[in-house]
C-alpha cells in the first residue's frame, strides 16, 4: 500500500502541474512547465501590450527601450535590444523571454536556448498580426478576459479613423524612416498599411520587403503630396531629430510647395502595440487635416 502511495507521489511530482506547449508567431513550438510567471520582454511593443492587458505583475525585466507606459521604467532593465546582458537576464530567473525576429539578435536566442531559458518570438507587420500578438500575449500572461475589450477598443478606434477619411481623395505620401541613406517602408511594412488606413497612398508601397533603400532622385520623381519624417529622438536627446531644411530645398515636390512636410514620433508609430491607434490618428491628421477640423 505504501509502495503504491509512494509510486503515485513520484508520478505526481514527475508530471508538471500544467505543462503547456504554445506555438509562437514564427511557428516554433515552445514548451513551458507551467504558465509563465516571470517574463522578460526584449520588445518595447510587447512590454506595452503586457501592461495594457494588466499582466505586468508577471513582467520581471525589460530593455532600455521599453519606456512606455511610464510604469514600465520601474521594472529592471537588461540592456539594449541588440546587446542585452545575458547575465542580467539569468539573474532575473525568467521562465520565459519574449523577443522578436526583428530588432533582437538570433545569437541572443541561441545563448538563452543553451541555458534552457525558453524564448517566444513575436512578429507583426500587419494590424491583424498586431492584434493577434496582443491576444497571444493575453493567453501567455493568463489575462484572456482582458484581450476582448483591449482588442475591441483598438479595432474600434482604427475603424473610426479609417471611416473618417475613407471617402476622401488619396494623397501620395513619402514616409522617411531614415534620411541618409534614405530608407522607406516597403510592401511588408506596417507603416504602409497604416498610411492606407489613414487615407493616403504610400509612394513606396510596391517596393521590396519591410524597409528598403530609395534614391532621393526617385523620391522626388514620384512627386509625393505629403512627406512625413520619422523622429528618432527620445526624451532628453536631440540625436535623430529630423532636419526638414534638406527637404525644403526640393521646391519642385508638391508636398514642399504646399507646405506639407511633417515629422512624427517614431516611438508611437513603430511600436505595433496598443498605441497604434494614436500613431494612426497622427498620420491621418497629417494626410487629411480637413477631416479633423
Amino acid at each position, binding site marked *: 500500500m505504501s509502495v503504491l502511495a509512494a509510486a503515485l507521489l513520484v508520478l505526481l511530482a514527475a508530471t508538471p502541474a500544467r505543462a503547456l506547449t504554445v506555438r509562437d508567431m514564427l511557428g516554433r513550438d515552445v514548451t513551458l512547465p507551467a504558465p509563465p510567471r516571470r517574463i522578460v520582454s526584449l520588445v518595447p511593443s510587447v512590454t506595452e501590450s503586457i501592461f495594457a492587458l494588466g499582466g505586468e505583475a508577471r513582467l520581471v525585466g525589460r530593455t*532600455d527601450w521599453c519606456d512606455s507606459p511610464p510604469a514600465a521604467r520601474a521594472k529592471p*532593465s*537588461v*540592456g*539594449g*535590444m*541588440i*546587446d*542585452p*546582458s*545575458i*547575465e*542580467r537576464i*539569468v*539573474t532575473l*530567473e525568467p521562465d520565459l523571454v519574449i523577443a522578436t*525576429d*526583428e*530588432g533582437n*539578435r*538570433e*545569437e541572443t536566442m*541561441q*545563448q538563452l536556448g*543553451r*541555458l534552457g531559458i525558453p524564448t517566444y518570438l513575436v512578429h507583426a507587420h500587419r494590424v491583424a498580426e498586431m492584434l493577434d500578438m496582443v491576444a497571444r500575449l493575453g493567453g501567455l500572461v493568463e489575462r484572456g478576459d482582458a484581450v476582448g475589450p483591449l482588442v475591441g477598443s483598438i479595432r474600434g478606434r482604427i475603424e473610426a479613423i479609417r471611416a473618417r477619411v475613407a471617402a476622401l481623395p488619396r494623397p501620395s505620401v513619402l514616409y522617411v524612416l531614415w534620411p541618409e*541613406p534614405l*530608407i522607406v517602408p516597403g510592401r511588408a511594412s506596417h507603416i504602409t498599411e497604416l498610411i492606407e488606413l489613414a487615407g493616403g497612398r504610400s509612394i513606396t508601397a510596391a517596393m521590396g*520587403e*519591410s*524597409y*528598403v*533603400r530609395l534614391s532621393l532622385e526617385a523620391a522626388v520623381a514620384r512627386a509625393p503630396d505629403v512627406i512625413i519624417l520619422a523622429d528618432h529622438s527620445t526624451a532628453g536627446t536631440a540625436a535623430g531629430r529630423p532636419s526638414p531644411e534638406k527637404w525644403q530645398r526640393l521646391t519642385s515636390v508638391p508636398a514642399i510647395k504646399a507646405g506639407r512636410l511633417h515629422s512624427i514620433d517614431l516611438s508611437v508609430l513603430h511600436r505595433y502595440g496598443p498605441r497604434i491607434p494614436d500613431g494612426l490618428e497622427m498620420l491621418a491628421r497629417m494626410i487629411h487635416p480637413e477631416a479633423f477640423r
Partner: protein
Amino acid sequence: MTDGRRLALALLSLGALLGVVACTAVFVGSAGLSARAVASALTGHAAPESVESIVTLRLRVPRVIVATLAGGALAVAGVAFQALTRNPLAEPSVLGVTSGAAFGVILAQIAGLGASVTDTLAAAGCAFAGALLAAATVYATAMSSGGLAIQTLLLAGVIVGIFFSAAITVIISIVDFNRLGGVVHWLLGNVAPVPAGSLTAFALLAGGGFLLILRSARELNVLALGEEAARQLGVDAEALKRRVFLAAALLTGTVVAFTGPIAFVGLVVPHVLRGIVGPDNRVLVPASLLAGGAFLLAADTVARNVVAPAELSVGVITAFCGAPVFIWVLRTRARVLP
C-alpha cells in the same frame, strides 16, 4: 640570465598576470553576484540550476576562455606578421587580413550558417580563406625586387582593408534592414560565450596555428638577420615564410570567425613585450600568447561592465588602446628601419 630561465620567468609572471585578470573577470559582471556566490559556484557547492552557477560557469567562464584564446591568438599572429615582414607595425588588422577574414564570415552568415559545430567550422574556413586572400594580396603588392618596403607594405594593407570593407558594405546594403543591427554589432568585434563543442574547435584551430609559429620561432630569429643571411645559415626562407604565413592567417581567421574583427591586439601586445623580454621569438611567441590573452580579457571585462547592463564592443576598447601605440611606434621604431 640564460635563455631558459628568461623564458621560464616571463611565462611565470605573465601566467600569474593572466590568472589575476581571469579571476577579476569571473568575479565581476552585470549580474552583481557576491564574491561568495561566485566562489560557491566555482567550487561546485551551488546547485547546478542556480543563478550563480549558470552565470559563473556557463556565461562568465566560457567567455573568459574565448577572450583569452582570441587575445592570445591575435597577439601571436601579430608577432608572426612582424617577423615575416621585419616590420614592427605589421599586424592582422593593419595589413587588412582581419577585413578579409570578416568578409569571409559575412558571406557565410548571409549563406545562413548557424551556430552548430560544423557551421562554425565552415564559417572559420571562410574566414581563413578571406584572411589568406587578403594577406597574399598585400604581400604580393608590397614585394619588390629589393624586399618589403615598410611604406609600401602599410599602404598595401590599408588598400586591401578598404577593398574588403567596401565589399562588406555592399553586402550590408542589400541585407534585410532588420538584420542590419546584428551585422553592424558583429563588425565591431564582440566576445560572447561559445558552446563547448565550438569552443573545442576554436581551441584546436588556434592551438594548431600557435604551435606552427612556436616551432618556427628559432628560424624566425634567423630571418631577422635578412633573407640572404638566413639562407647562408641553412634556413629555407621561402618554406618558412609560407608556413608562418599560413599559420598567422589561420589564427586571424579563426578569431574573426568567433569574435568578429578585433583590431590592434597583435600590435600592442608584442610591442610592449619586446620592451620587457626582448626580441627573441622563442620567448616572444609564448609570452604573447599569455599577454595577449590577459590584454583582451581585461578589455572585454571593461566592455562588459562600463555601461552595464548594456555592453560595449571590445573592438572599440582595443582600438582606443591600439591607435596611440601605432602612432608612437610609427614615430619612433619604424623610422630607423630601411
